[in-house]
């Protein structure tokens, strides 16, 4: 039997980065359990538009958990109550009839609110531009046996590369630190031969950019990896620390 629920939505409204925000409350009636969280917000917005009110602004794009655009801090968790899933992969059947669902934007000095639930995550792009690439052209895909890469290294690099840069780690972190993101982006290249040669320069440049943009200092609370929709591990942070300290000791 399909679950159909009615619930209260408490949604953060804010007109701009300088504006003092507040919560708006909406009653949602008879929402089918198979509705995704973002579809539910679409339903809300259509109601608001038809009533002549301003719709709620929120980020979204692919709606299949790979683009990293959706954000939303739902009931005290980035990307909501599920683990290993983005907001767009949450379905309303997770919630119960009569619930109050609180939806907030990512809150961090590094991610200022643009409007309502949408935050400016271009700081991540700036960190990537600081060194999250290989500067040599590696050409077309080569024969798999030309450069042998251990399976364990390849697996770890792939796990690090699964980071979609959504910013949930910063949103979850009590220190507003972007270490999980930076470490994943450093690791995905440092583990592979094409990226290894620039590993030291990359770690230094990306970390310096992260510090400059006002993200916090990692205190190893592990909230980031617990909330990461892609289950990126803090072992990447250890690798970033290692690369950075080694690079600094060599200087």
């Amino acid at each position: 039997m399909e679950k159909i629920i009615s619930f209260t939505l408490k949604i953060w409204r804010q007109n701009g980065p300088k504006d003092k925000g507040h919560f708006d409350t909406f009653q949602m009636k008879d929402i089918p359990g198979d509705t995704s969280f973002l579809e539910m917000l679409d339903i809300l917005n259509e109601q608001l538009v038809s009533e002549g009110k301003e719709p709620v602004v929120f980020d979204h794009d692919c709606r299949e958990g790979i683009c990293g655009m959706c954000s939303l801090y739902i009931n005290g968790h980035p990307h909501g109550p599920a683990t290993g899933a983005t907001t767009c992969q949450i379905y309303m059947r997770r919630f119960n009839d009569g619930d109050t669902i609180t939806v907030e934007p990512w809150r961090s000095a590094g991610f200022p609110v643009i409007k309502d639930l949408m935050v400016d995550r271009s700081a991540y792009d700036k960190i990537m531009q600081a060194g999250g690439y290989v500067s040599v052209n590696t050409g077309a895909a080569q024969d798999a046996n030309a450069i042998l890469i251990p399976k364990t290294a390849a697996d770890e690099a792939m796990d690090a590369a699964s980071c979609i840069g959504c910013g949930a780690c910063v949103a979850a972190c009590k220190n507003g630190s972007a270490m999980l993101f930076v470490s994943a982006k450093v690791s995905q290249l440092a583990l592979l031969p094409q990226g290894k040669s620039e590993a030291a320069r990359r770690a230094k440049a990306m970390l310096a950019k992260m510090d400059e943009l006002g993200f916090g200092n990692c205190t190893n609370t592990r909230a980031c990896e617990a909330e990461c929709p892609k289950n990126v591990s803090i072992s990447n942070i250890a690798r970033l620390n290692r690369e950075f300290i080694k690079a600094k000791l060599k200087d």
Partner: protein
Amino acid sequence: MWLSNSSIGRKVVMSVTGVALVLFLTFHMSMNLVALFSEDAYNMVCEFLGANWYALVATVALAALFVIHIIYAFWLTMLNRKARGSERYAVSQKPKSVEWASQNMLVLGIVVILGLLLHFANFWYKMQFAEIIGDHFLGEFGPTDGAAYIAYTFGCPVYVVIYLVWLLALWFHLTHGFWSAMQTFGWSNKIWFERWRIIGNVYSTLVVLGFAVVVVVYFFKSLC
């Protein structure tokens, strides 16, 4: 200087001073255990460590470690609160894998400092400090009669409770601090993370138990 102007550098300073302080605690704890076996031997240790030049040099180095660790702790907390932004979440839930200690290291550290001040008043002021200024009658006993001071302090149940609470705070502080330091040094991965955590828990438990057993034994001795 990367140890002050990069986030990892600042954490490295916390880790190095933290690990050094753990080593000091280990040494201090082993010294205390001597009192359980022989009070004369314990007083010999007190004499050996009094106001001799090597003890003073070590004390100054130790004080520097403490001061650096504490200053960095407040500095990091300030930076992190700023990075967190002014707006707080209305609803927030702690994920299961997040240790309580890891989010309260500063509070636990402050409890440790408060306990330390009491400890200075109970022991250090009457022992090493009395020797340094050459006034041997600051306390109830001679400055090298450590065993008498232990018996005197832990004969009082209020001090026993305060010291045990202090040690509990220290235990929480160490269980997070130990593996966190290794993680900051980069000496960790998926396998070693679990190992460091277990090693850290066992080690901090042993150190704290070593301290606590002296307190408890002397309390029961005072009852008889």
